[in-house]
């Protein structure tokens, strides 16, 4: 299993982190829309969350509904330490890459 994050995966993981490392898919969609200022496909987010889970970067649980809010359970995702580790190494790799690029005053 390669430890490389795709672009969208990266952003989804970061959004998860911003939400405190634990969230169901709707807040992630909202967070991504807020930060990007554009539309984000909820299905794509969901599928990506599930994919990250298969790669053991997230775990998920079905959480029963709270009082008064609909009648269905929702799937809540949690960030795993491995994901935090991966984000960190991605960031330092990117930082190394950026190093010197900034001098070009983009």
């Amino acid at each position, binding site marked *: 299993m*390669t430890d490389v994050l795709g672009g969208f995966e990266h952003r989804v993981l970061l959004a998860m982190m911003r939400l405190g490392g634990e969230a169901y898919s*709707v807040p992630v969609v909202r967070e991504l829309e807020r930060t990007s200022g554009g539309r984000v496909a*909820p299905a794509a987010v*969901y599928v990506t969350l599930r994919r990250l889970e298969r790669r053991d970067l997230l775990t998920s649980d079905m959480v029963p509904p709270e009082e008064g809010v*609909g009648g269905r*359970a929702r799937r809540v995702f949690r960030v795993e330490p491995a994901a935090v580790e991966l984000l960190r190494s991605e960031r330092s790799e990117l930082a190394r890459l950026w190093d010197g690029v900034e001098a070009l005053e983009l």
Partner: protein
Amino acid sequence: MGAGPSDLRGRVARAVLRLAFDAEECDGIVRDVEELVAHRSGAVREVAFWVTLCSYPLAEWGERLRSGVVDRSERGRMRAMPPVRALREDLGFALRGLLRRRAFTATTVTILAIGLGAVISMGSVVQGVLLDPLPMEEPDRLVSLWMLDEDGRRSRMTPGNLRDVAALGEVFQSVTGFQQSVATLADPGGGPTMVLRGGEVTPEYFGVLGAAPLHGRDFASADMDPATESVVLLAHHVWQQVFGGDPGIVGRSIELGSERSRVIGVVPTGLHPTVAGVSGTLPFIDEGDDFFRVIRFAGDYWDLRQPHLLGGIARLRDGVSPERARAALATLSDRLSAEFAPNRGESIIMTPLKEEIVGDSRLALLTLFLAVALVLLIAAVNVGSLFLLRAEDRLRETGLLRALGAPSRRVTRQRVLEAAMVCLAATGAGVALATWVVGATREIIPYSVPRLESVGVEPTALAVATVVALGLSLLFGALPDRLHRGSGPSVGTRRTTSSRRRTRIDSALIGAQAGIAVVVVVWALLLSRSLLELSNVDPGFASPESWVFELRGAYGSTEEILDAVRRVPGVETAALTLDHPLERNWEDGYAVVDGPAGDEPSRATIRPFGEGYLGTVGVDLVEGRVPDALDFAGDVRMALVNEAFRRRHAGGGPLLGRRVRVPSADRRLGEGQSVYEIVGVVRDVRFLGPQTPSEPAIYIPLTHFAVTGRTLVVRPELPDAPQLEAIRSAVVETAPDAAIDDAVTLGDLLDRALARPRFHATLLSLMSVAVLILCSLGAYGLVSRTVVTRKREIGIRTALGATDSTITRAVVGRAMTPLVVGAAAGAGASLVGSRLLRSLLYEVSPSDPVSVLGAPLLLIVIGGAASLLPARRVLSLDPAESLRAE
């Protein structure tokens, strides 16, 4: 939103999601989507909900496609994936593949649906008619009883013989006799008099069949005594429809026919007393189950060794083998032959009741089923060839999948699933088609196939078709893949399959189709030619426009009715008779009284007829004279015979003036009175239908036989103006209790007699049209592909000066060679296969050259024409353009 609709919405939403997700996952997604669209309202929200919801499975499929094809890191996952999950992924993949190529999917599903639908419908008919047990208790122990004469002709039992068989208690548990009975019944609701068809049976009848009355009591031996009150059992449908389910029906007294009878019970519908046919009988024998009465005769009736009146059914004692029963019947026959003159040369035989009821439809149905299986085979070959072509188209995709590490088993499985979807969709469409066809079949063939009315689409036929479909899926899915397996990833990414191998496969498929098609077409031609021969047979009567009316309830007033009908304007002639020309109810023994030695007692059809009968139906006199009106009242009894009778007695000098004796008429006329002088010879009439040559017949005037005619024949002045209503009212005005049961022309009756062969010929012709179309499609496709793939070569050839005809010949030859070879092989195979049809053919040999040579020629001409169409496209090509094509 109420709980109901919201619940439905949730179920539909989950069903959509289930296409790609686990059940437990669906609820969470629905919840998410609801929240996502919660800020909208009304219809917009609903639309947004569904659009968003549907995007989930699409995204998931996209995800799987990517992870299955592109992401090599997923390879391990694909292998390790739980089987159910992987299967669902593959299903999604297959579905997308099929949706992408809609034309391919529609074509393959349609072709296969036709083939499978045909198999399911014919399979259902075969199972319902031939294989299903009879609706009686332990039907395998039921046999029907017949008399067999030295010429191998069967006839019904005589009362005396039946009684003697019933005495064989060590082999038969019980024995019953029956005959048809028709009676009028005044409608209790005040409507017109109706005609009921039923049977007169011995009291054991229902016990033998293993049936019991639903209400009331069964017959008892005491009911046979003519001195007791007449009793009747009504069928359930009569009780319901005529008497409105009257709860007090048992014990009620009804006027049935000429007799007042007490209803003693109600029996189940469907216990027909008439098993179809003496051999050679017309297929439209009435099967009446409306009512049952007991056969009641005083005196020596049960000692009679003539005439052959009674149908016989026996139930074998438990554990007694048919062989033992046959041996017992043979011993009895020998004893009776020695003892009674009428039994000489006759033996009593038995046949399984089921065989009797199904009769000779067995062979016809098996032939049709075989033809249908061949149609399916062609459809399968055709669809297989399409799948092969498709696999070739997808070599690049397959190669890529493999190169990226998809296990080849998985790739094969995806292909098989794809094929399975096509085949299952085709099965579904086939079932719909079959349901319709089975229903339509019941409409088309009202007279020909027994038990057909109870046939529906049978689960077994359906199961067999599904198994066939799944087998085909394996074949279509796995085989093309296997054939192309040789082309490994490096080759597969480019399109360079060995074209020679491809051509060989193509040719083999076309050849196989042609061979099968020719067999079906030969059968269709044989049956059609046989039908043509049958239609051209001279039935022996010249007035097909004459009408036949069955009179019921006209006791004693038939002469008055005849006079009234003769006075109806538009009626040219009218006459009474016992049997109309296409009917044979009475066969009996006779002896030529003053014949030379060697004129042994023999059997002939006895045909009592009324004045004017011969002229009305158009049967010509060939010798002698027809007794005139006065002769009918005179002391001298006179008779006519037919040409077959004259041929039988040709050795004995001139026939006119000689006398015959018909002993069974003694019962009516007095001992020794039934001697008739032959005064004329009439033409042979094929009264058993066009297939069967006429038997010797003796025509005896009704008055000389002391019977009343019950059939009225009428020849109209103008063929199209039969004045049916006028005749009907003339009958009813003359005899208010009488009813006309059936009114048909002789031409219609002749038509009915041909219903079965016409049905076979029509069905096979339709199938042969289908196989010719399928086969032509195959040839068309092959040449089209040749033209497309060899554009460049054709361009070079044209540039080098090849003429149009050379190129056309080369291209068309690709299809023609396998067509011709296949057609020839098919013609050879049909020489063997057509023997099966022998008994269905009339005056046409199974190896009839017109059919055996005509079918392959037809196929080659049509196939050739189909392959010329795409070939002509080549000629319009500009050589330069052709060269640029690749």
